[in-house]
């Protein structure tokens, strides 16, 4: 359970990096990601091109491995000899006459089940001499000196006769023939394990049923001059695949809605009331929870005073007053933070971020100042500032250290600015921030910065004692990096300063308190959602395509 908690926190603090990744990708829209949103490409990469290795030698690839042509072999029966033109024509004529001349290529990766409905299109650039082209699917390891469909675990639709070949040398009448200029699409329904084809955007009907999992898109060619281009989804398709996706989504939704439940589990009203009530209690929405329980007759398992206490601490964290929250926690639940140094570190780390933010001061010294201000507030968000001169000054300051990379441990030794003692990775740029150029409240600012640096050192010392070194170190690095910028809010690590980041910390603290009281660390509704998510992941691993169409957020939004 401990591990889960830190996992949650990790998700919380890791979100920043994820966001920035997404931003990079949104510049070049990845159509495949939109088509197959539930596919985790780190686990199961999508086929994006033909494999340069998993092909027969007679096959040539070009144009980013999306164009396939028949080049024949350099040896054996398919070898293209050096001959005078007429003889070459004769060779061309003879070549590709036998099945031994057939050659296939597979895509780089098998089709992930989490696609739900997978589709790719092949445009026949040239039918070559005879147009013996096959388009389809095959499993890993199937002989490539063949057209798709001829062998076990191999499936194909052939252009010369329009037949479909289902792991057999003899085809079945299936569809029309296809030739130069035609666009042939191959679709795999991973929910019911069927395959269909399209010709120029027209659905030709189901060709194969009962397909095995992990098939690769495959094309095969047999005679000279045959050339095909492939669209794995990077370009818009000729066929309206979105229409079928919509249908499958609607069907999956109906299947979920109409799934029969045993009577005792089917009492939705009861279950939902319990969910709502426990959620409210869990997050300390005390009055609402009381009102709800009065209205629905749901019992509250926790002491009201205890809920109120948790609510108080949560409010402090959410307001950014982490220092006070820590103090209150210590007072109300003595020993809790001492038993859980990871949590304490998380809180302290957040406290440091909030100090940069100007929302937290050490509780003991808070009274004197009264107004919470950031030590580096003079470089704060420009729109909050009314003083034009000061803004200019900030730019000046910015000009000075804008080149500072987010501090990496020990990388700055040879740089001009000395390291701040006790805080590795934090350079003296902080010192440059020090408001010595601002005459007004220089002394109090300086004191704040001093305090912050002292707090930072303490934090660093604390991190050294923790076991999960790597994780804590990166969290600390992120936090310290804030100091490297004259305007932390606009910096690449500025995401840490967003108030929404407090939520993860708040949750972690709340969970720890609940656990210490002998209660569930997460609320049933959250457990339910994360359970559903992990079930979807398991479905994807178990090659159950329906996982692609179970849209959790849409189901929850209802």
């Amino acid at each position, binding site marked *: 359970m401990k591990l889960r908690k830190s996992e949650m926190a990790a998700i919380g603090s890791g979100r920043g990096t994820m966001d920035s990744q997404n931003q990079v990708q949104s510049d070049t829209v990845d159509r495949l990601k939109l088509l197959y949103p539930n596919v985790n490409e780190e686990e199961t990469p999508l086929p994006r091109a033909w494999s340069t290795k998993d092909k027969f030698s007679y096959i040539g690839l070009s144009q980013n491995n999306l164009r396939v042509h028949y080049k024949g072999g350099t040896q054996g029966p398919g070898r293209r000899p050096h001959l005078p033109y007429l003889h070459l024509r004769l060779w061309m004529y003879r070549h590709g006459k036998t099945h031994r001349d057939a050659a296939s290529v597979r895509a780089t990766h098998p089709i992930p089940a989490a696609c739900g409905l997978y589709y790719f299109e092949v445009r026949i650039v040239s039918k070559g001499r005879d147009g013996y082209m096959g388009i389809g699917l095959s499993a890993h390891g199937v002989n490539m000196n063949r057209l798709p469909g001829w062998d076990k675990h191999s499936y194909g639709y052939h252009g010369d006769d329009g037949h479909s070949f289902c792991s057999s040398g003899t085809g079945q*009448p299936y*569809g*029309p023939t296809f030739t130069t200029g035609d666009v042939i699409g191959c679709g795999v329904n991973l929910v019911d394990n069927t395959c269909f084809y399209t*010709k120029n*955007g*027209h*659905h*030709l*009907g*189901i060709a194969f049923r009962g397909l095995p999992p992990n098939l690769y898109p495959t094309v095969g060619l047999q005679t000279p001059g045959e050339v095909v281009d492939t669209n794995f989804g990077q370009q818009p398709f000729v066929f*309206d695949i979105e*229409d*079928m996706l*919509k*249908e499958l*989504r*609607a069907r999956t939704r109906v299947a979920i809605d109409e799934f029969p439940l045993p009577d005792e589990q089917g009492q939705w009203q009861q279950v939902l009331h319990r969910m709502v009530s426990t959620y409210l209690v869990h997050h300390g929405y005390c009055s609402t929870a009381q009102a709800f329980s009065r209205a629905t007759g749901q019992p509250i398992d926790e002491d009201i005073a205890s809920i109120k206490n948790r609510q108080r601490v949560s409010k402090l964290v959410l307001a950014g007053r982490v220092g006070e929250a820590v103090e209150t926690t210590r007072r109300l639940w003595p020993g809790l933070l001492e038993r859980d140094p990871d949590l304490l570190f998380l809180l302290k780390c957040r406290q440091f971020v909030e100090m940069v933010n100007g929302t937290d001061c050490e509780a003991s010294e808070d009274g004197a100042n009264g107004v919470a201000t950031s030590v580096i507030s003079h470089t704060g968000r420009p729109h909050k500032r009314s003083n034009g001169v000061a803004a200019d000054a900030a730019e000046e300051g910015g000009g000075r250290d804008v080149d500072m990379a987010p501090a990496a441990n020990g990388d700055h030794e040879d740089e001009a600015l000395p390291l701040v003692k006790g805080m590795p990775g934090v350079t003296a740029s902080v010192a440059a921030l020090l408001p010595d150029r601002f005459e007004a409240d220089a002394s109090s600012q300086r004191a704040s910065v001093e305090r912050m640096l002292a707090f930072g050192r303490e934090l660093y010392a604390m991190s050294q004692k923790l076991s999960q070194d790597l994780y804590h170190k990166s969290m600390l690095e992120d936090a310290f990096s804030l100091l490297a910028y004259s305007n932390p809010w606009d910096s690449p690590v500025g995401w840490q300063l967003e108030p929404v980041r407090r939520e993860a910390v708040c949750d972690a603290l709340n969970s720890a308190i609940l656990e210490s009281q002998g209660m569930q660390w997460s609320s049933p509704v959250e457990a339910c959602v994360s359970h559903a998510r992990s079930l979807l992941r398991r479905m994807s691993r178990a090659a159950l395509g329906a996982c692609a169409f179970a849209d959790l957020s849409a189901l929850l939004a209802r």
Partner: protein
Amino acid sequence: MQQFTVFMDIESSRSYIDELYSSDAVKVMEALVTLKNSVIGSNRQKSSVISQGVVPRLLQLMSEESLDPNIRLEATITIGSLAKGTPENIESLIEKGTATALVEMLKTVPLGSKLAEAALCALRSIFSHKPAPVDALPADMRLLTRLTQIAREDSQEARTSVIRVLAVWCSGTVEQEALTCAGACSAAAAMLVVPPRSVPSPSRLVPALELLAAMCFKNPNVAQVALNTRHGDKSIPELLMCLVSRDKPLVVALKAAKCLTFLQRAGALPADDSRIVFGALPCLARLCTKENTEDIRASAAEVLAYLTEVDTSLQRLAAISNHLMSSLADIVNCQSAAAKQGAFKCFASLGANDEDIRKMIIETHGLMVHVVNGLNNPDPCVSLAAVRCLHSLSRSVQQLRTTFQDHAVWKPLMQLLNDSPGPELLNVGSSTLCNLLLEFSPAKEPMLDQGAVEMLCNLTKMSDPALRLNGIWALMNMAFQAEQKVKQRILCCLGTEQMFRLLGDSDTRVIMKMLGLLRNLLSTRQHIDAIMSEYSSQVMQAVIVVLEGSYPAEVKEQALCILGNIGDGEKSKDLIMANEDVLRKLVDYLAHPESKLQEAALFVAGNLVWRGEAGAAARQQRLADLGVLRALKLLRASHHAAHLHDKVKTALAQFNEFT
């Protein structure tokens, strides 16, 4: 026991029914409410109340404008409730003028009122009965404008009701045009919008789609208006395109595809429009597949048959879409007549033009057996559709020789045609027969034994020109390269009187086929002489009638060809030679400005002057005397007849002694 309770009900209801006629509004109101509550959900009560003669009083209470609106409302609701009863209930309501009363009321009631809604609801129930009292709703512009206004602006319930009523009502060109003028297109368009993220509701969409389909059916003007009607940023075809997608309820997709089909057939959309090619057609092909219910599949096949009836490219596209052939073959297997009919019609459309598609149809597993069974189906709709299918397939020479022979399709067909068929069946059936009787068809012989000649001769006496044409056409096909006894039988059966009647037919095509028949009868030498020996005067008269009459050139050409055939006969030549009238005409036609007539006359002359046959010299002499030789020489000199020069030379070469 049952009777006893009925009796009790009537007895106990006496009192409040009497109150209905009271002059005290409060009492009437109470009685109405009691009555309403008693009839809701009970067909037995409805019948009982109607039989007590309450309806006129209810209509009066409903229509009286001076009465308390609440009384009128209750009366209308009660009528509406009665209209949800058995078909007999509705019939008696209609008999008592309920529909008219409701329509009258709609002219005056304020829009958006409960009363209007209740009246529309009642009217909808009455119109859902078949036959609907369409006459109760006159094509009065002011009324229709009012109704379409309701359809655009009123409550959801009222809109749906009025659109349903109009959809039933719209059954002819007059209604279609009137509704269009009243703005029904835009009213329907407004109903077709499905807000994003909402589940499309068939109960709202289907009436609007039905109205649109009824309005556009075979009406190019209305279809054009519909094409240009927009709601929001979308035109009607675009709205329909959204509704044919796979995530819509099947019945909605079906009706939307039907609307697109009607728009296309009425000429508003070209056959290659993407909304047809990627919208309606794939949708219908998908709805025909096995996963769907029988009635959906039946209707989809029927609509698809209409969509692909004429356009070859759509036929080709449908033939490869979503395994349509096997889907249709499976629908033929369904029990219901509607399903069989739809599938046969669809096969008929698909195979109308393309030989490859016909081959695909024939090769569909076990289909021919089903077609033959379909011909024998007791339901006339099914047998008609099966004949249509057969007719399409009979255009294939290959099928005539093989599959049709294997399955002896002529047997049930002949039986159908001999069994007092309806006009439509007779038409399609005889057309099919025409094809079956083509020279190369092996079915010819057995059909003769079944009395085909007699039946076809009867067809030529029909008042419908299409049937006469089919009859004479089939006879012509039958006579082609037939044995002499067959020819004799045709001549004998048809009779010279009928022959002349046909030559005077109002339809030129019939005359052409009649002459064609004569040509086919008069071919090969022995047959010519044999037939001419018996019918010479009639045949010659027929030819002269045509040559002298005011017929188009292609008809006269046929007559000259007959002469040519006669001229090929050994003894028959003399019949021409003996007829100076004919010979003079021949000279005239050799100089005729119409080149095909010249060519035909040349053919006759060539046959007559042919050397090496008995009496050739005498004939040449006679023809030369009459100016044929001169005419030929002129023809040779003519630049206009350059393409005939070879034939002219051959003919002239025969006249050796004279040139």
